[in-house]
């Protein structure tokens, strides 16, 4: 890796570790101090490494500098010392030298604890995602603003409010108890999935950033599978789902940065490695007696790794959507279920079902009806595409619909 790529890379992987370790030491209510010390460390790294060249072990260099900066801070900040150091010394069983534990095991443990702290149910979902991007993935306010098509100031404010919430709610850096784990994991998994989806479906034009988002969400979910306490079937199901989706990353965006629809994708660009990994985690998820939405969505994604339009494929997908909707309603699942119905049963039944959905203000609803009416009533199909075009909000969506209109007009 080149030097100018190394620091951003280390920032992604090491920032959360150092911040988490320091938060564990200071208490999460002092997260800003932990962040300042960590940012200073990286600033010093880019200055020093630029002048003197890379140290033999850059990560160890970062840890040593962060450790020294933390000790300096405690030495020179008397107010902080009086309040906090007494407590730290107390927990350090009377020793006068402050220990800053940067062992692999401790780093791993505090990162997991940080995930649970950030994804605490008392923090709003929006704030959880912001904090997860900022603290767990090392994204700066500017990058987050880019991903959400928002501005830096808004994101700053959002992050600060979220950190304030961590203080007010007196959230601790610790793993939840055995009895709470499933409920707390639900919130963590939900945030990880949203993080992943943000990367996968984002309207941001920055493809590298989007891919990084997906990778970070997968990295964090993978961490949950490495700990016996959090390695639950639903975690493996979510990881499987992420693997299946990201296997199509190369195929779903063309060289112009436009979305390539599933039917038009070149399967040679699908990642066999990620599909295999998806199957591996899907098998691991089939334990216990709780069927989560991630199990169903992973199984649906599994069937989508088979490009051939078989009756068996669509019947399975239809039944999985039937189950998913019984578990939790969402307009997207309702639309996808109706599409699967048209493939597994027939278009006529699917049209009757589609008209019951009452999703008239959703552009995807009209795109679905256009698809169902194609070859049955092309005039009607065109009308729905034109309605979809009016309702679509993003340029990418409008482009897809315009292409369909052009294609349909040729057969009229």
């Amino acid at each position, binding site marked *: 890796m080149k030097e100018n790529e190394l620091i951003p890379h280390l920032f992604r992987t090491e920032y959360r570790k150092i911040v988490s370790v320091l938060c564990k030491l200071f208490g999460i209510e002092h997260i800003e101090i932990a962040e300042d010390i960590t940012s200073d460390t990286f600033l010093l790294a880019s200055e020093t490494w630029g002048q003197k060249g890379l140290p033999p072990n850059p990560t160890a260099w970062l840890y040593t500098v962060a450790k020294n900066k933390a000790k300096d801070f405690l030495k020179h900040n008397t107010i902080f010392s009086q309040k906090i150091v007494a407590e730290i010394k107390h927990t350090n069983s009377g020793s006068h030298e402050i220990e800053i534990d940067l062992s692999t095991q401790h780093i791993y443990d505090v990162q997991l604890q940080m995930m649970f702290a950030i994804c605490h149910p008392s923090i709003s979902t929006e704030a959880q995602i912001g904090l997860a991007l900022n603290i767990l993935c090392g994204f700066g306010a500017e990058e987050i603003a880019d991903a959400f098509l928002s501005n830096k100031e808004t994101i700053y404010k959002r992050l600060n409010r979220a950190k304030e919430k961590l203080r007010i709610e007196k959230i601790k850096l610790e793993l939840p108890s055995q009895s709470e784990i499933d409920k707390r994991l639900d919130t963590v998994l939900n945030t990880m999935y949203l993080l992943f989806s943000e990367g996968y479906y984002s309207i941001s034009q920055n493809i590298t950033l989007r891919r990084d988002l997906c990778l970070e969400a997968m990295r964090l979910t993978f961490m949950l599978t490495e700990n016996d306490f959090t390695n639950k079937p639903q975690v493996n199901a979510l990881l499987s789902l992420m693997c299946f989706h990201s296997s199509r990353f190369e195929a779903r965006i063309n060289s112009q940065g436009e979305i390539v629809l599933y039917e038009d994708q070149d399967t040679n660009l699908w990642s066999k490695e990620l599909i295999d990994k998806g199957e591996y985690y899907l098998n691991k998820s089939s334990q216990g007696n709780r069927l989560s939405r991630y199990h169903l969505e992973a199984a649906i994604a599994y069937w989508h790794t088979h490009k051939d339009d078989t009756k068996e494929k669509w019947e399975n997908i*239809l039944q999985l*959507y*039937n189950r998913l909707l*019984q578990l939790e*309603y969402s307009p997207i699942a*309702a639309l996808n279920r109706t599409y699967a*119905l048209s493939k597994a*049963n027939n278009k006529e039944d699917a049209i009757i079902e589609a008209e019951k*959905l009452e999703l008239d203000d959703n552009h995807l609803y009209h795109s679905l009806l256009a698809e169902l009416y194609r070859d049955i009533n092309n005039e009607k199909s065109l009308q729905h595409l034109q309605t979809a075009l009016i309702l679509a909000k993003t340029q990418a969506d409008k482009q897809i619909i315009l292409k369909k209109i052009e294609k349909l007009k040729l057969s009229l």
Partner: protein
Amino acid sequence: MKEFVLVFRRAVDLNEPQPSPEQLQASMKLWQDWMGSLAAQNKLVNVGNRLSSDGRVVNPGKVITNGPFVEIKEAIGGYTIVSAKSIDEAAELAKGCPILMVNGTVEVRTIVSMDDNS
């Protein structure tokens, strides 16, 4: 939106042959497609349950009898809870129920909430 119970009834014929695995699967698909349809309309409140045909009736005087099919020709086979604007809309939803294909009936009843004194 109000909530309604759909009660599925059909005549229990004890001499009826056991359905084949294929018949069971076909019937399962009909039920799942219907449930999926209700859920896709966001009108499924609770999938409910199927009920076994075996039953007991506890009578006044605490006398227990087998049943209830001795007295009622049509036994309750299960129930589902849906939401709808009116009982007529709920009845419309019930039209898709697969029990109708095997000569069963669906009884549609409004759920009275605890604080409804009307």
